[in-house]
């Protein structure tokens, strides 16, 4: 309960801080629109040449792109402002020391206490694109499919958070390793259907870093309706990755505070 209050307070104060810069607000809205137009242009260019990309129709791809935008927006609103450049900000500049001495769970403070509400603009745009894709698709999803879609989105978000925490944990063992650029690049892979990647890479992106599943699973759930197996494995995968992240974080903190040596 306290954590929820802290989370709300953090979001509220970030929102207030954001609104004081109105020029930046307009600027960022403009940029989100441009980014979205560029991704839509990609789809448009591809489907000007073909009717099906690895089995995906144009309308389905719009839904995929929209879903990816929604997830990217939630990631950059709630996860990135906390875990970005973790080795530099948290360890070298001592933010982690501050969190360690505050009377709330350190993992919460380090990974969820801050947010950048401005990035939610992208969420609205993403929802718009999904609607567009579904209208184009011609077949409105059942309520059950929408519910399942929300569950898979939540699972995808949990996996994203866990991957962020795991990457941050690396800093406890190798403080000079800075993988933010790598993660941000790899994230881009998620915006395309899994089936376009060839075999060895596809296996890596499915099981090791499930980046391509993050958007494709919710999208196909929304379009084709819920499947029990998919839902169960999503929830299981999200739980396992979160537990793994929490465990690694604890081990990392023990090392950081010298409790192991």
């Amino acid at each position, binding site marked *: 309960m306290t954590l929820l209050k802290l989370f709300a307070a953090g979001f509220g104060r970030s929102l207030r801080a954001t609104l004081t*810069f109105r020029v930046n607000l307009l600027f960022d809205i403009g940029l989100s629109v441009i980014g979205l137009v560029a991704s839509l242009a990609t789809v448009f260019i591809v489907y000007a040449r073909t009717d099906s990309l690895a089995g995906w129709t144009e309308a389905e791809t719009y839904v995929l792109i929209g879903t990816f935008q929604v997830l990217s927006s939630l990631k950059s609103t709630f996860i990135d402002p906390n875990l970005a450049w973790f080795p530099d900000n948290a360890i070298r500049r001592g933010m982690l020391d501050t969190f360690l001495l505050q009377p709330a769970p350190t993992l919460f403070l380090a990974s969820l206490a801050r947010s950048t509400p401005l990035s939610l603009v992208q969420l609205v745009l993403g929802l718009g694109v999904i609607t567009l894709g579904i209208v184009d698709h011609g077949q409105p999803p059942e309520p059950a499919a929408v519910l399942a879609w929300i569950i898979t989105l939540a699972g995808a978000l949990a996996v994203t958070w866990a991957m962020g925490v795991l990457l941050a944990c690396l800093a406890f063992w190798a403080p000079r390793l800075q993988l933010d650029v790598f993660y941000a690049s790899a994230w881009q892979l998620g915006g395309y259907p899994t089936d376009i990647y060839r075999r060895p890479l596809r296996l890596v992106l499915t099981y090791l870093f499930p980046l391509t599943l993050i958007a494709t699973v919710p999208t196909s759930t929304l379009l084709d309706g819920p499947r029990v197996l998919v839902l169960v494995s999503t929830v299981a995968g999200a739980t396992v990755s979160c537990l793994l992240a929490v465990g690694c974080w604890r081990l990392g903190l023990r090392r950081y505070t010298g409790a192991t040596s």
Partner: protein
Amino acid sequence: MTAVVVEDLCMTYRAPVRESGWKATLGSVFNRQYRDVPAVQHVSFALRPGEVVGFIGPNGAGKTTTMKILSGLLHATSGQVRVLGHSPWQRRSDFLRRIAFIRGSQPVGGSQELTVLDTLRYQRLLYEVPPAEFQQNLDELTALLELGELLPRQLRALSLGEKMRAGLALSLVYRPEVMFLDEPTLGLDVTGATTMRRFVAQYAERTGATVLLTSHYMADVATLCPRLVLIDKGRIQYDGKLDELAAKLSPYKLVRLTAPGADERRLREAGELVESSDGTWVLRVPRADVARTTARLLTELDVADLSVEEAPLEAVIDQAYREGVG
């Protein structure tokens, strides 16, 4: 009844050893060599509630390491530590709510876009301070630190001195009972440093907080701390009253006299000449000889003015760092 107990505390870091050059770099990836660096060795001391103690020593002596252990940031290699009855490294919420660790070398945390008041309110939520108490503490701090005009401003727009005041308010709005201050006046101008000192003294007196303070500025220590703990190379060299340290370390006093037309040769016989300018001289005289020497000077010379002084604290501490406490 003690606020802080430290018994036989040791902290050893494991630092990777690596020689320069490509070959050694590659080699160290596979076969890493470590060296044990003792940062703190067999340190013991205790602080009574309400005590304000100076914790001094040269750079790398182990001051910050000790403070990190006391606040819970580091887990000691061996030894016993109790702060307010807790083991700090467990970092339990009810312990963290009662302490503050303030480092002058580190910026105020939190989003720099937010105002001081916003950040203070977040702090209230985080430390679960009841609203009435929060308001009372805030009013007090506002008066003591002249925060009034800082509250609506963004953290990023504050000057260094203002940031220090805001940072203090953030750490003290929940009324910690034990404060660890690590170089709190670092980089501050004379006014800032004086404000800081006056405030720490007032806060300690008003709330009965226990304070452990490190500083390289002897003025901080001299004005705030009746008791001094001196640490060097990870070991405690002295623990006791400030003036006793001076007497112990400096077996000399300074005799300053003004005697126009005195013969400098005669003065050199009386003691070591430290300073001379325009008819005023400063002599370094062994403590035991002070009475005899002054009497002799007064009878033999035409003295206009004469005073006996302690050696400056800076010089005493410098001697302690270089030569140790005998």
